């Protein structure tokens, strides 16, 4: 279904919304780059999803790039809709990887700068 329509259903109320005083409305679904509850960043609603996050496995921490699968049919398969790829920890290489995934593939270029900033963090 179209992302605009889904957003209209979800924006009022959904189980991932977290509200706190004096803060913008946050959302904790996977695939949300900024953790903000907004159409641009929503990991549920958009057909193209981008996120940079860190994942801990025991004592090891990896930086993970989450994207949505290219095939539209994957939207009907909740398990395989989001793809995770590791990013190099060396910042020059890692940033290059982020750029390649966004600008290089014409994928969510609007989020590229934010993704890079988040990677640096």
């Amino acid at each position, binding site marked *: 279904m179209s992302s*605009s329509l889904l957003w209209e*259903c*979800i924006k009022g109320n959904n*189980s991932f919304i977290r509200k706190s005083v004096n803060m913008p409305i946050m959302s904790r679904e996977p695939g949300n780059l900024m953790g903000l509850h907004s159409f641009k960043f929503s990991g549920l609603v958009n057909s193209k999803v981008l996120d940079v996050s860190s994942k801990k496995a025991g004592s090891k921490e990896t930086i993970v790039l989450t994207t949505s699968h290219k095939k539209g*049919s994957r939207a009907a*398969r*909740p*398990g395989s809709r989001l793809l995770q790829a590791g990013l190099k920890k060396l910042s020059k290489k890692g940033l290059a990887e982020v750029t390649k995934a966004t600008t290089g593939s014409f994928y969510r270029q609007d989020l590229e700068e934010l993704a890079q900033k988040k990677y640096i963090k």
Partner: protein
Amino acid sequence: MSRPVVSVFDIESADSVASTVTLPAVFTAPIRADVVHYVHTLMAKNKRQAYAVSTRAGMQTPAESWGTGRAVARIPRVPGGGTSRSGQGAFGNMCRGGRMFGATKIWRHWHKKISVNQRRYAVSSALAASALPALVQARGHRIDNVPEFPLVLSDSLNRVAHTKDARAVLERVGAYDDVVKSRDSRKIRVGAGKSRNRRHTQRRGPLVVYDVSEGMDKAFRNLPGVELSLVDNLSLLDLAPGGHLGRFIIWTKGAFEKLDSIFGTYEESAKFKTGFNLPRAFMTNADLTRIINSDEVQSVLKPQVTGPTLVIPKKRNPLKNAAVRLALNPYQAAVVARETKKASADKATKAKVIAEKRQVLKARGKEFAGRRKAFYKAASAEGEIAF
């Protein structure tokens, strides 16, 4: 509209696909959260039981007002004596032991009528929403391990007879996470409901929809959060609990295939709902981004209006800033040229004047030095001080 094909999973394993079914047209019905919300709020009232205060409450006294002149308020008062009740105010809502304002009546309009077509519209919307994992996830169901949406299991599900087999099926199919969520969310209700036979609350788990049960309803009913429903009587209260779209539904193949005849398609009316046709969407293409970026729209757009191109620079003082002065007064160039020329011409004369001045100063300096010496000599000599 071409309808995609949905895999029917074997209950033995989520990897094996038993067969496929075309998606019933209901799942392509427009998703109208507003209709669902409206119908749900009305429908939810239909199971209410009447409550009211007693009709006689607060009125069981022959109280009468004492009228004026007795230095008391004019509220009706209980007659008689010998008890503390006598003389107390009665009847009024403000009085202690009086009847309440607007006493609740049992003939309140508890149940709400909803037109049949609206009810069916809402159910269609709710079913369509249940096929979108985004909405089901947003509603809070744990569906990360479910292989496909909508989830359809083969008819052998009907024959599952024991709860432990039912649980195993759900685990294989990735639906058990939702059951776990429901089980773990069981808490004692906040509020007075806990002492009114509504002690616990817990989240809703998956809804299993079937057409024929050969024991499966008893197998599934004890799993926490799991609810069962026949295809024939799907209720909005189960499909959109709380008025929120996106219940996690597990279908049996028979039930899934029956949907087309129950709700109809866009080509034919519903067989089991007389006069009902699937609702049509206002917009056939709801994807705003695509519409905006389409050729048809982009080609007729006017060019984007940018801000004002006039940029007002920082003011520079022409009296100090030579470049600005020159821009304002082009003659300034000639003046400057003339003056530099004069200055260089004057240089020679100036040098002479300076040299002369230097001579004068030098001579004077010598003279003063002489005077200084003489004075010092005179002052340091013995004898009378004379200036």
